[in-house]
């Protein structure tokens, strides 16, 4: 497909999206905030001025093709962060780089251009235009760019079939179910083939079953499209299912960033510990993180598991074996071994 962006995780590559020391303080503006002491201000000082801190000192990079999930409870500042990244909300302090370019330095016209070509966003309550049918909604971002009708509708149809809504092109949002409406929202956000994909709690307003369907749909799309994705959620299970890396936010602060496995195995604070306490490890931990080096007694037997598999996926295979199990990467190179005992102990949460 034309819109495929090759995934590359090269370490020397510029991150697609980089933000450094983002602050959002309501009740003040950039210059006043800086004059008053900026990021060095104490909490009491901020409170004394009647300012509300929504985001404090958030820094992270999102690599090309990565799914970066920002997770937090309501009021933790996660939605404000994603709005700062697109300047829907103007950050009070900090830097945001999009492919190395300074987003905050962009003027109104440049910002319009960046949003039109580089960014797509999916909203919690879908934000569909009720007066337009599905086709009109999906084609909307292209119409804004004054792309001619036949072209934009062709592209819109492509997107509609990508999210599995063929035949509904002429339906209006009010005639669709919630799940279908969000599919339209997804198709619309992808219509202009953005490099960066923002999803603000896209599935929170949906029933659990539909939510699971759409999570799978998202994973399928991401496998195909490799978008650089910033995904907001308050649901840890969802975060774990979707994320390459997760940032956990609390009271405006990012308290820990790491892979789902990292967070579950090495929670950095009590707050994170309380969160991940009830996450079944088998669904998070990958085989690769419990392997040991080969010893002379090991040999590659009948049972071979992939390093990227999660413990829960391979548990049925391992259940009956008595010998150690070989762990290989995607290319079939043996990376190490794991004993059944160790495997069971990790599953049981003893280690």
């Amino acid at each position, binding site marked *: 497909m034309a819109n495929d962006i090759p995934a590359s995780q090269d370490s020397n590559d510029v991150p697609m999206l980089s933000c450094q020391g983002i602050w959002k303080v309501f009740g003040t503006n950039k210059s006043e905030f800086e004059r008053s002491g900026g990021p060095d201000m104490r909490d009491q000082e901020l409170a004394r001025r009647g300012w509300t801190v929504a985001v404090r000192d958030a820094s992270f990079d999102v690599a090309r093709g990565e799914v970066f999930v920002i997770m937090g409870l309501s009021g933790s500042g996660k939605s404000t962060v994603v*709005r700062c990244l697109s300047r829907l909300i103007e950050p009070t302090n900090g830097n945001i780089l999009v492919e190395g370019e300074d987003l905050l330095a962009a003027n109104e016209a440049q910002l319009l251009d960046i*949003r039109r070509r580089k960014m797509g966003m999916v909203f919690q309550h*879908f934000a569909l*235009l009720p007066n337009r049918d599905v086709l009109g909604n999906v084609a909307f971002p292209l119409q804004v760019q004054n792309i001619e009708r036949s072209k934009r509708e062709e592209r819109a149809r492509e997107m509609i079939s990508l999210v599995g809504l063929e035949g509904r092109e002429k339906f*209006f949002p009010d005639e669709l179910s919630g799940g279908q409406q969000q599919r339209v929202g997804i198709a619309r956000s992808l219509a202009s083939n953005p490099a960066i994909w923002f999803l603000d709690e896209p599935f929170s307003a949906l029933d659990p079953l539909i939510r699971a369907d759409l999570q799978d749909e998202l994973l399928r799309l991401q496998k195909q499209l490799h978008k650089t994705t910033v995904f907001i959620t308050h649901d840890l299970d969802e975060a774990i299912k979707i994320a390459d890396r997760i940032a956990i936010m609390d009271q405006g602060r990012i308290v820990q960033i790491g892979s789902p496995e990292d967070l579950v195995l090495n929670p950095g604070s009590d707050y994170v510990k309380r969160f991940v306490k009830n996450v079944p490890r088998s669904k998070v931990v990958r085989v690769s993180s419990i392997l040991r080096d080969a010893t002379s007694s090991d040999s590659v037997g009948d049972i071979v598991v992939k390093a990227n598999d999660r413990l829960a996926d391979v548990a049925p295979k391992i259940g009956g074996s008595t010998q150690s199990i070989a762990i290989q990467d995607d290319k079939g190179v043996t990376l190490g071994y794991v004993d059944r005992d160790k495997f069971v102990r990790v599953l049981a949460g003893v280690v």
Partner: protein
Amino acid sequence: MSLALRIDNLPHIARSSVKCVVAVVAMALITNLGPGWLSTIPDWLMFPVSDIVGDSLTWFAREATIGGIAVQEITRGFAGLIDKPIEAAVVVLADGLFKGRGLDVTQSVPPLSWLALGGAAIIVAHRFGGSALALTTSICVAFLVSFGLWQNAMITLSNVLVSVILATLLGLVLGIWSFRSTHVENVTRGIMNVMQTVPIFAYLIPTLLLFGYGPSAALVATVAYALPPMVHNTVLALKSVPAETIECGRMTGCTQRQLLWQVQLPTALGKIAVGLNQSIMMTLNMVIIASMIGAGGLGFDVLKALRKLDIGGGLEAGMGIVALAIILDRTSQAIAKRAAHGKHREPGQWPIWKVVGLWLVIATGIAYIFEPAQAWPKDYVISTAVFWNDLVTWINIEWFDVLDAFRTFALLEVMRPFRDALAAAPWSMMIGLLAIGAYALGGARLAIYCVALALAIVMTGYWGPAMNSLYLILISVTLAVIMGFPVGFWLASRPQLQTAANLTLDTLQTLPTLVYLLPAVMLFRIGDVSAVIAVTLYATAPAIRYAMIGMSQVPVARLEAAQISGCTRWQTLRWIRFPAALPTLLVGVNQTIMMAFSMLIIAALVGTKDLGQEILIALNRSLVGQGIVAGLCVACLALIADALLKAGAARAVTHRHKKED
């Protein structure tokens, strides 16, 4: 001290009553025993407001010049300009084109036939409202045609259409402007609030002065009258666009203009359309009233009939207005609903404008060949006027004793004493009591606001007529609430009836005010009793509606909690339903009062002696200042009532613990 202690031990209602009585007695003593100017308004408090307003407006209209051109020239020129679209609409819809002069006039081009227009109305009704609405529309069209009211209905419709289009365009512009700038919004909201309480007649006077007698003055008055709700609704609708939807527009890279035209306005369209329906109905009401200054059409028929006391003719024209109102209201509501929730067209279904266009061509063809399809033959016009007139005569002969006894009793035993008491009450006492009541409900600010408005009435010299208005309003509103609330409570417990009830109430509320005078006059001739009955009839609908809404919106969980605690029906009503419904009920009373005010002015036509009559007299004699000032006095009364009841409703909503001090 001991008195206060004993009062504190009484139940709440008794305590309030005792306080009220004490206040009234105290105020009565002070104002009657005090210096004379406390009971009779002294000259130094009165200002010749009417003269000043009248003189300056007359000067402005007759003598003032802008850039060397007299204002009157400009306004009359403007009137000539806006006459054109009305004339065009009248030609197309009602009259057609004529040639020749004097007695030789012949129609050269006929207007669109009743078959074409009526059919088009039915087609539109069917597309947007299904067969039920199509049937309703057919009945209304058939009534208008067969009773020979079609042509006049189309004149009224022409006026309504042109006014609505103008009001909508202006309303959108002002609405968008207000939406974008809070400064502009504050200004427009202030003006609009006053405009909505100024009685309908008061609009006619300055326009008459500036634009002269005729359709264009009527048009200007109508547009001015229908504008406030349009602006208000546009602002509200634009504000109701979800934040996410706007963010979506910004994220797709919309410019400010794209955001407005492609995101905000279309998303708000559904709500704007609901407002449009309201302003269509207000326009119709005003066009009917504006017949007094030359709008013509059905309203003129009713007025003519009222003046001749030709009840039958008036009733038929009134029913014609009702039929037109129902078509306009139901269809515009159905279209508004569709605008809010899009629906895809079935494959093979033509777009509506194509269907209507084709029908207009076909029907015009038929009308060309088949004369009765163009103009309903005179011989087949049904008239029931004779029947109604006979009925009125019969009622007046057979039931004269009963009706007259009732009328005399009401007048002598209830209304007159109340009126005289209000008239005799010293002005300072009324204002003192108003201040105390307002202070108790909403604190010092509210008290100052209300007293200032009341003093404004005193200053104009219209205190007497204002008290007369107050007495009519109080009696009518009391009756409307006494009749309306129980009906509403009863309907609240019968959900299966509510759809029908809502439809009936909607229809009753959209009927032009003039129509309500007819049954009252039919039974009680002219005078205060007829006025009270007409006002009560008109104001009962909101009382019923709000009682129903208030009582049926009680959260189910609370009712279940009452049930599980073993409350009897009465206990549930007393402790659960009533407290929960109280704020809505107060809003209902407020709405009832506002409706009563707007009807009261119209009721001047059946001979009251209040502010409405002052305006009507001013209108007939072109006393510009008096008319406008009397109109503003009505607005003052309405604003006071509105402020007091809103404060009451706000108190009923917020539950705060009493500070212990």
